[in-house]
């Protein structure tokens, strides 16, 4: 045995609740075996979850830091590890290590500002942490607008929470949209970038963007058309990672390592990085 702490060795976590959000997204509640929250974190940070024998992967922590009882991860089924996670049952142990990466500047750049959150599909996962943090410390921030879109109504992650809680909060405007018309939907229909332009926000606010790369690209362009500067827009990146410690070299883009220098970047910072993310 070696006394030195090894960051690659994880701790145990227990999945105490599994919620099916959409046909391919489930939200997992994780605590330590003695029922506590695994570790403290800030909005936007990530954790490495693994099932021994299947593999390890990085996920953004969906629950807010203000939740001191447990952690939640909204995970879309798309590869080996996520496939396995989707098949597990409540009570399953997994391993967890973290927190990794920087966080959204909720206590600095965001403080006192009006905030505009724009998410597409599973892109809501990392933003949910920030949104609930902002809702918890409501007096520290100005007006909050949330634009969230998905393929269909059934693909809107956390739809229940959005409708039952966010929509009812004072000073929070939620704009939902889906890509195509469907019978039980009387809300907006259309892609997120277009919707953002239609809504036409004033530029005296900070925007936070997360979603598929193509959505980020067009939404950012839309925001710039509205007069937003890139320094007002934050996003969060995803790349393949193995160590999450800035050592394995996988998430290296330019001189940055997404796992430790990111995943949160201000959009003007991204301009200094080569286009490999």
């Amino acid at each position: 045995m070696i006394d030195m702490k090894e960051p690659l060795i994880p701790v145990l976590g227990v999945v105490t609740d599994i919620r099916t959000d959409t046909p391919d997204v489930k939200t997992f509640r994780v605590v330590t075996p003695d029922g506590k929250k695994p570790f403290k974190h800030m909005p936007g940070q990530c954790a490495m979850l693994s099932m021994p024998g299947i593999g390890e992967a990085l996920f953004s922590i969906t629950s807010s830091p203000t939740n001191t009882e447990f952690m939640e991860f909204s995970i879309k089924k798309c590869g080996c590890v996520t496939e396995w996670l989707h098949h597990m049952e409540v009570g399953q142990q997994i391993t967890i290590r973290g927190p990794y990466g920087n966080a959204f500047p909720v206590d600095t750049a965001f403080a006192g500002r009006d905030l505009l959150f724009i998410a597409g599909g599973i892109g809501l996962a990392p933003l949910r942490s920030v949104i609930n943090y902002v809702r918890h410390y409501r007096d520290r921030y100005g007006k909050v607008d949330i634009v969230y879109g998905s393929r269909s109504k059934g693909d809107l992650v956390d739809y229940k929470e959005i409708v039952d809680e966010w929509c009812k909060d004072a000073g929070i405007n939620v704009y939902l949209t889906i890509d195509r018309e469907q019978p039980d939907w009387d809300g907006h229909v259309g892609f997120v970038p277009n919707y953002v332009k239609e809504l036409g926000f004033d530029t005296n606010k900070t925007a936070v963007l997360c979603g598929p790369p193509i959505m980020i690209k067009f939404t950012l362009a839309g925001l710039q058309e509205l007069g937003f500067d890139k320094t007002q827009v934050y996003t969060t990146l995803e790349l393949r990672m193995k160590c999450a410690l800035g050592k394995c070299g996988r998430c290296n883009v330019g001189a940055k390592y997404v796992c430790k220098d990111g995943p949160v970047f201000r959009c003007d910072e991204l301009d200094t990085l080569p286009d490999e993310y």
Partner: protein
Amino acid sequence: MRKCSLTALDALFAKMAESAALYLPVDGDDGRAHYAQWQEGLHLSDALNTVRSAKDFFFPQTENLMAFKVNGKTIEIIDTRTEADDFIVFGVRACDVRSFDILDTVFLAEPADSYYANRRAHGVIISLACTRPAETCFCSTFGIDASTPAGDVVCWKTDDALYMEAKTEKGSALMAALADLTEECDTDAVKAQQATTKERMAKLPLADLTADKFGGGKTMEFFSDPAWATLSEACLGCGTCTFVCPTCQCYDIKDFDTGHGVTRLRCWDSCMYSDFTKMAHGNPRLTQVERFRQRFMHKLVYYPENNGGVFGCVGCGRCLTRCPISMNIVKVMKNLGGDAK
């Protein structure tokens, strides 16, 4: 400075091997040098350098990190780390010694990698000054003096004697143990050798190679250079350059199901491989041009940007002799920015 006659070299090695496992370059059957654990009858190779670099001692190609036992819904995490045994690596050249500094900045940066740190703490590096640098050597490009390497103990081998000087506490401790087999001496012979080696270094074909135009902050300048496409057009996408490179340190972590448990292991990985950045829903580096560029940009621009201008290459020349298509960092440096010879 102390010296030991070459005739007493075996006795010296035997003494070193008493306290710790001693590794040194020896000639293989195929005429190429590789590191082997010393035992009676093994002789120090005269070759300039080993095929594989010395990074293996601290960052082995494969190592087990931890183990798991999975039983239904429960998991047991087993910390399999053990304290490394003391070991000595003899005959490390100046370039490879520098490579340890580069690996240190990665692995010992917080949060430190305990596997690496553990081996580093238990290893003593005895370097050996070069006397006959090869045509593929270009360590001087990166400010390395082949005639005066760093290390815990530095050695110079002349025709008749091995001159040794301790540079660190670990080195002094080792030299104290070797006191009976060595004698105090002046530095004349060493100085003469250093002068000759420096002269030779200056005359090498790659002596004029400079890295001046590279360095931190040059990402945008070189990233879109059209030369990448031509330089990488014949690249096979194999991992030879990365695996013989003393400074390449990217790794992969994998789980191996043994049938009675799970071993989580780490192994070398290569940014030249097509699946290096492959994710479940996409790959930001789809073609070999991008993978090829990553390797050289990392050594020449990204690494120096994060490490005070120190380059991620030590000029050992291994990629020059091993690449199946003879593409290498020297050709890259000479072709980028448009001043090919």
